[in-house]
């Protein structure tokens, strides 16, 4: 692990192109430890591309990415062993059983907490003998959440985790974020187009549009700076004011 004082995520002048399309355009972002960061934007804005760079799944074409002070491409073990990751795609292996996936995941993380994993499994009502492929979408999301949380990672990365899920599962996910930050010094990066969710838990919001960061500041500062006639606008209204349309509307 690198210096304790270094930001958890440090992205500098990151640019990424897919053929002629610029997915990320000179993105610079620095996230200190111990807060919940909401990354908001419409589909195709660049949220997932940014997160994939943070996980080392994409190599920086120009600029640099450091997580815990390390390059996630050069040192995947050093970075990934401290990250819990849950994505919208949730590509858990369908042939595994719940208990097998728990044992499998446990082997990769020395800090795995068996008691916490069992507590999460029970609270999420996951049958240990059930095959992953037979779980509902919500149960799969809970399973993904379990294996992302059970080793109490220093950084929890959630990429559109509640997309297409029912309110109860979304509540579980938000609860997980709150539980994670209850542990001192842990950090959450949470991407979503559902701004009311981000508003509930985020300390800091980064708005991204067409691969560019249009706004990045603490949520309270954003609200204060957009106060109109004494009324504090919602995050959705602020996003519309900045980008021209709501991310949820852009989804549709």
């Amino acid at each position, binding site marked *: 692990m690198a210096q304790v004082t270094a930001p958890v995520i440090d992205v500098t002048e990151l640019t990424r192109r897919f053929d002629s399309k610029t997915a990320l355009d000179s993105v610079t972002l620095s996230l200190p430890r111990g807060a919940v960061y909401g990354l908001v934007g419409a589909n195709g804005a660049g949220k997932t591309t940014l997160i994939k760079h943070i*996980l*080392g*799944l*994409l*190599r920086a074409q120009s600029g640099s990415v450091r997580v815990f002070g390390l390059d996630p*491409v*050069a*040192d*995947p*073990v050093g*970075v*990934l*062993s401290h*990250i819990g*990751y849950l*994505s919208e*795609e949730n*590509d*858990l*292996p369908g*042939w*595994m*059983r719940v*208990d*097998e996936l728990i*044992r*499998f995941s*446990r*082997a*990769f*993380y020395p800090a795995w907490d068996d008691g916490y994993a069992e507590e999460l499994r029970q609270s999420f009502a996951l049958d240990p003998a059930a095959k992953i492929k037979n779980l509902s979408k919500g149960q799969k999301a809970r399973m993904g959440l379990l294996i992302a949380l059970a080793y109490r990672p220093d950084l929890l990365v959630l990429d559109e985790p509640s997309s297409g899920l029912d309110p109860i599962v979304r509540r579980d996910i938000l609860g997980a974020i709150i539980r994670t930050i209850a542990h001192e010094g842990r950090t959450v990066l949470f991407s979503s187009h559902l701004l009311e969710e981000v508003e509930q838990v985020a300390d800091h919001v980064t708005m991204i549009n067409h691969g560019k960061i249009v706004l990045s500041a603490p949520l309270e500062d954003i609200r204060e700076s957009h106060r109109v006639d004494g009324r504090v606008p919602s995050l959705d209204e602020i996003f519309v004011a900045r980008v021209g349309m709501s991310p949820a509307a852009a989804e549709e």
Partner: protein
Amino acid sequence: MLGVITYLIVLAGIKLVVIAHGTPIYLDSPESFAFVVMVPLTASFTYFLALFTFGLDGDLAARQSMFPARRFTLPLTTTALAGWPMLYGSVAIVLLWLALRTFALWPAGVELPTIWPALLAVSLLAWTQALTWMPYPLPGLRIIMAVLCLGTIDTTALLALHFHARGSLMIGIVAPQIPLAYIVGRIAVARARRGELPDWRGGFVRVAHIADALSHRREHFRSAASAQAWYEWRRYGSSLPAWVGILLPFELVLLWVAGDSTSLVFTILAGVLLTPPFVATFAAAAVSNSSSSASDSYVVTAFIATRPLTNAELVAAKLRMAMRSTVVAWLLVLVSIPIALKFSGTSAIVLDRWHRVGEIVGMPRAVVLSLLILAGCIALTWTQLVQSLYIGLTGRASLIKGSVFLVLGFFFLFGPFAEWIIDSRRLGEVWSALPLIFAVLVGLKMIAAVWIGVRLHDRHLVSDRTLVTGAACWSLAVFALYGVLIWLLDTPHIPHYLLMLIAILAIPLARLSAAPLALAWNRHR
């Protein structure tokens, strides 16, 4: 199709042009004809079977129909859904046969009938389509049905040929099978479209429970590496042993009909021994696939890419799985051969030959030779499984598909080239040039290995210690093989440096070392 026809036209053109200039290429012997024409044609026919059955996208062993489910929503009748792919396939197969008949058989002066072989090819395709699209009550039943059904069609045709059946009789035997296959194909698609999936697994509950209990992991893993190796084993490891297990009974049952024919017994045994490396060639496609899903994407999934393991550790897990898979497949072979020999009554023939070889070369030498052949076959199986990792792990569809076409192209060109060498009496020159050819190949291999080693080092994909250990192990294996070759081929006709070159070429190095580079290219895009 165009590629195959072009190949045949080029072949016929070369043949005619060269004949015109007075140095003909003889394709008239069965061996040379098979080499130049039948091998590429068989490869093309097999590809057509896979293509027109949609077998490239599905799981052959699954109970579900392999007909693409997305097509069921098309506003078409079931007859049209099943009929058009069958018709397209039939037309393509007939065109393939006509191309062969026109451009390869005719210039080669081989006389074969036109109609019934085309009907036989169409029948084989139509039955394969029908059997592939049918939903089955048990996993693996599709493969058994296909082997039995296609084997029966082939055997019937071969028996008819053996007894010199007339063309009209052959047509009478083959032609009725085509409409029958079309009807079965239509029924199969109709059942799949209605979602019918019979399930007889209830009758095998006890077996299923045992299999489940055996495969269900209940203990904790010792390390992340062992967990990843288990994952690879569960995902891909059983393919090779399962296929070998399916094929072995069909091969070994031939020992019962071999009777006292020593040559037939040993031919069957050679076929059995070559089965694992042969099957491994096909199983390698699954092993080298970096995507854990059954989709046609080659990109490594986020689930695997975000494991806190190095690229070298992820590749090592695949290598360990391949080793385990090879051992299980060979255990099946080594257990079943003595049993089959004993109960078929052919063990006496094998023992008699064994004693005679022992008398000629000496028993210790015979034992060592046998063990070496066995070890060579096992090593070949493992090599076949892992040698394409460096392509498959790149996750680039164009590279993966391109490499397949390159290999096919190599075989297409190799045939005529080898034929030219043999026919133009240049074998002696080739033999003399072998040391130079091998030296060039060794040079290329070493340059590739150094290039890969430097990149592995620069990108920190492999530790210095691992690099040095790997190089030392490889050198040790080369010297061990060199020693064995000197001991085996102790003749003044083969210089020792040639044996050293062979040993260097035989032990895998560059392609295996490139696997972590390929995975890194895929994992960190």
